[in-house]
Each structure stands twice: as C-alpha cells, then as structure tokens.
C-alpha cells in the first residue's frame, strides 16, 4: 500500500493553509460557524457515560452546558476523518501504522507502549483544552483569526507546553 516511488509530494502548506482560510471564511459566511473540535469530545463522553449512568450525567453541570447531541461540530470532526480517509486512499498515502516513524526511531516499535503514551497524552490534552475553553482549532485558528485575546494566550501556552514535553521526550535530538 505504501510505495515511496508512487508517493505524491505533499501539498505546499502555504497553499493548503490559504485554502483552509478561505474555507473558514466560507463557513462563517454560509453557516455562521467557526472551526472547533474539542467540545465534540465532551458530547461523546456525555453520551457514552449516559448509557450506563443516565441519571448522574443528567445532573452534571458540564454535561448540561454541552449536551450530548449531534451538532455542526460533531459532523465537522467526522468530516475531517472522512476527508482524510478518502484523500489518503486517492493519494496513495493511506497506511495502517501503529507507531509513528519519529516515535519508533526514539522509543522503539512497541505498539502497546505508543498506545499508552497516546492514551495518556490524549487525557491530558483534552482536560487542558476544556480548561482553556478550546483547542488548536477553536483557539488556535478561530480565536486568533478573530483577534481574540483568549485565542492568542491559549495558542502561546499550547506551544510552550508542547515545546517542554518535546524537549523532555526527545532532548536535543
């Protein structure tokens, strides 16, 4: 499935970013929606929890604030999955890969180890994103492009935290 010979060169990130910028503008104009992703994870968590603990979830303030329902953003996140899937199939870059190359070169090819790191990182990232009231989509793109103070503050902190963790994991390498 993965053959370096037939692999297409990636799209220029300036071109891709500019097209994504036009897409944001179109979305705000056409649907009144700015990009965001992390609230969807709250809705999914609320939905999953409510299947076993319905009464408890119904009384939790945060799940009352972000009700477990299908909305624009949840479809947007599903769309990213779908778009990436189709694009990678057509572009010959779909690759079933349990451990990313960079991670494997540093820590080995154990899928279990990588899975645990990804799981723990995911917990931390989402807890932080909800506390910050947004992720790199909601704050990093939508917040900064509206020149909101919260967007710039959060985006700077995302990178500071990320740089620290990358330094801890990879050192100078």
């Amino acid at each position, binding site marked *: 499935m993965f053959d370096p010979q037939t692999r297409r060169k990636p799209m220029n*990130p300036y071109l891709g970013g500019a097209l*994504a910028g036009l897409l944001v503008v179109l979305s705000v104009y056409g649907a009144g929606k700015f990009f965001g992703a992390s609230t969807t994870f709250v809705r999914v968590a609320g939905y999953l929890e409510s299947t076993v603990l319905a009464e408890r979830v119904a009384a939790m303030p*945060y799940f009352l604030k972000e009700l477990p329902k299908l909305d624009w953003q949840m479809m947007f996140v599903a769309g990213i999955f779908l778009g990436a899937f189709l694009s990678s199939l057509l572009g010959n870059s779909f690759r079933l890969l349990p451990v990313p190359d960079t991670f494997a070169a540093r820590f080995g090819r154990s899928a279990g180890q990588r899975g645990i790191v990804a799981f723990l990182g995911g917990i931390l990232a989402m807890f*932080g994103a909800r506390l910050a009231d947004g992720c*790199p989509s909601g704050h*990093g793109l939508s917040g900064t492009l509206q*020149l909101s*103070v919260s967007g710039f503050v959060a985006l700077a902190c995302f990178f500071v935290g990320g740089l620290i963790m990358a330094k801890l994991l990879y050192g100078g390498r």
Partner: protein
Amino acid sequence: MDLWYGLATGALFGVLLQRCEVLRYDRQLGALRLRDMTIVKFMLTTVVVGMIGVYGLLDLGLVKLSVKPAVLGGNIIGGLIFGLGWGLVGYCPGTAAGALGEGRLDAFWAILGMIVGAALYAEAYPRLLETVLTWGDLGKLTLPQVLGMNHWLVIGPFAVLVILIFRLFERLRL
C-alpha cells in the same frame, strides 16, 4: 442542513490537512522540536487569510464574531496542560480524527484518551468553576479593543509579522 454543512466543511478541511501532511505525528512533533514548521506554516496562513476575510465581511455587516471570553487562569493553565499532553500524543483533537482516517492506529488510543479526558474534566468542572475559572476573567476581549485601535491597524502589522516569520523559516529551511 447545519449538519451537512458541518460534514462537508470538515471533509474539505480533512483533505487539506491530509494533503499537507499536517495530520502526522512526525510533523506535529517536528514543530515542537523546532525542526519542521509545516504545521505552523499551514496554521498561520489559515489565520491570516481567515482574519482578512472574516473582518472584511464583518465590516460589510455580513457575519458575526464569536469571541470566547478571556479567562486567563483557564486559558493559561489549561493551555499549558494541553501543550504537555499534545507533546505526548502528537495529535490535537481535530487532527486525531484525521490521523485515524489515514490509517494511523495510535490515533485510536489518542481519541479514546481524549474522551476520558473530557469525562474527567466534567467531574472536575464544578470545583474549577469556583477557582481557576474565576482567575483573570476579562470577558470577551479582542486585541483591537485592548489597543483601542481599528482592527485593520492590528491585522496589517500581524500579516507583515507572519510573512517575516515565514521568510525566517524558509531561510533556515525549517
């Protein structure tokens, strides 16, 4: 209708993220290790184009802004926690969905972790609401409001700054 717009917008965004390889752990860590600025180029270009477009339409009265309140306690502490997690997982919430789409199986564990993280946050929320989320609450604030300037006087210099950053990246071959 909203739902279909969401799906279509997400799918197009997913194609762009995938074609630029922004979804990859290697690219995201590349930026955090200051070796490969692909994701930063993508992100900042999106921001500048989006900024000009959205504020242009705002001046014409065609769109509304949706500014999130600046709560410095939450933005800063949450932002740092997110960053530490991001360095471990190598995907953000949106790109994790896309990474799974292009077959990156570790993104499955990332997404599972993110759902657990959201559930834990919901548990902690009442206590956080009384503490961290009251620290430095400035309300819905934008840079032009802080500086007391017309928004184009902020957008112009911002765009120039971004172009200078891009020139630096290209000069350093990042």
